[in-house]
């Protein structure tokens, strides 16, 4: 009984491999694109926040407040269904934009935190050598901040990949979308949801290992 349902699960797992591979590819593209954009947004917002210009800080705060104050799924739906009145965003890019908009705020907070954790003597050393403010930020502060941010950024990237599952609700056939479709085709959701859980676990595991490796490598020079 247990054996037969295990065998059934095995068949489903193997049989759906090709399809999930396509879903994986979409999840992958989506995550990479959104996380790269989120990183740029995050860096930009972090710099606004540590600038001494009130209005810029205020803009950054507002952005972070909105993102942290509303569920990701609301953000994605507003971008996909809502903004069509103003301009129409293709599905893939609506997903990317929603995810990037969301992760961007968290990444901004991570970057801001690590920038501020860098000893202020570093800034002073840079300035005392005649470096401009921007040069000091770019060449001295940011490289150190990024290293220090690796664990948190890695964690945020993993969260981003899991969050990307929500784009299936605007119709994308990402990993989770494939699982939903297969479940509804066969009128049997459980094995497909378990299968997709395994895929996610596997991705997260790999990523965790990579992040740990990078962390170790960077620790070398600290």
């Amino acid at each position: 009984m247990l054996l037969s349902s295990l065998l059934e699960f095995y068949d489903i797992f193997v049989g759906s491999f090709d399809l999930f591979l396509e879903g994986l590819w979409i999840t992958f593209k989506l995550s990479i694109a959104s996380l790269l954009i989120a990183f740029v947004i995050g860096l930009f917002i972090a710099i606004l926040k540590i600038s001494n210009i009130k209005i810029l800080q205020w803009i950054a705060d507002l952005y972070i407040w909105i993102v942290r104050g509303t569920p990701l799924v609301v953000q994605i739906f507003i971008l996909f269904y809502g903004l069509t009145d103003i301009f129409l965003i293709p599905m893939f890019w609506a997903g990317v934009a929603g995810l990037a908009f969301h992760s961007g705020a968290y990444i901004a907070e991570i970057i801001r935190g690590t920038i501020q954790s860098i000893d202020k003597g570093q800034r002073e050393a840079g300035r005392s050598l005649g470096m401009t403010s921007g040069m000091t930020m770019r060449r001295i502060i940011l490289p150190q901040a990024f290293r220090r941010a690796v664990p948190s950024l890695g964690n945020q990237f993993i969260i981003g990949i899991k969050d990307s599952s929500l784009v299936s609700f605007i119709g994308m056939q990402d990993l989770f979308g494939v699982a939903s479709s297969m479940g509804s085709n066969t009128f049997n959701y459980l094995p497909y949801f378990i299968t997709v859980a395994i895929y996610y676990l596997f991705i997260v595991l790999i990523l965790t290992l990579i992040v740990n490796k990078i962390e170790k490598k960077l620790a070398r020079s600290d």
Partner: protein
Amino acid sequence: GSEEGSTNTDSGEAEAGGDYNLIKDGKLTFAASGEFKPFSYMEGSEMVGYDIAVGEAIAEKLGLEPVQQKAKFSGIVTGVNEGRYDIAVASHTITDERKEQVNFTEPYYYSGPVIYTRPDSDITSADDLNGKEISVSRGSSYVSMAEEYTDNIPQVDSDVVALQSLASGHHDAVITDDITGITAIENGLVIENRGQLGVSNQAIAVNKENEELLNAIDEALQEMKDSGELAELAEKWIGEDITEEPETTE
């Protein structure tokens, strides 16, 4: 309503395949849910089913290349209205509310909403539905039907999700299309038909600003009906001819 400029991603120099105002020149972008077996469901990364077959046949008749778009059912009418899709071949029942948003072609099949329950249920007809928990697909015409009996209406994103939860023991009943219910039963869900709630006409939704496309599709549909092609598609995907208007409609 959508502006012409925003609906055209490729700029619109009219081609010889038709001067409809299409999202992509020469291509007919049609939406379906992909979670409504046997009308539309995924086979590999492609949607298949009766809706899809009809959509593709129409595109061919119009001399256009069919482009299918999977979308959550609840967002499809809005998507057509706003120019995200040219048309929707997604088993939409014609309703007054939807008619305010989009144009409908002539029906391409006739069906009816049915009450499904688990076999051990004491619901035997619509009269027993009062105050029960009835799950339906979000954005479907079944929402307002269910509202006549109860205000306990869990709404999910596809009819199959609703049926699956019903079969697993959730909810008291699900209102969904007859044929979807039959397919579910064939696929092993243990549920039963406890009465039809009338007959509905399913049609293709077209953007309001695209009268020419509407007319062209109606023409194509009529041709397919006359030639028996539509009935053939129904036989192929559904197993019976559902393209004939029943004697009695409400």
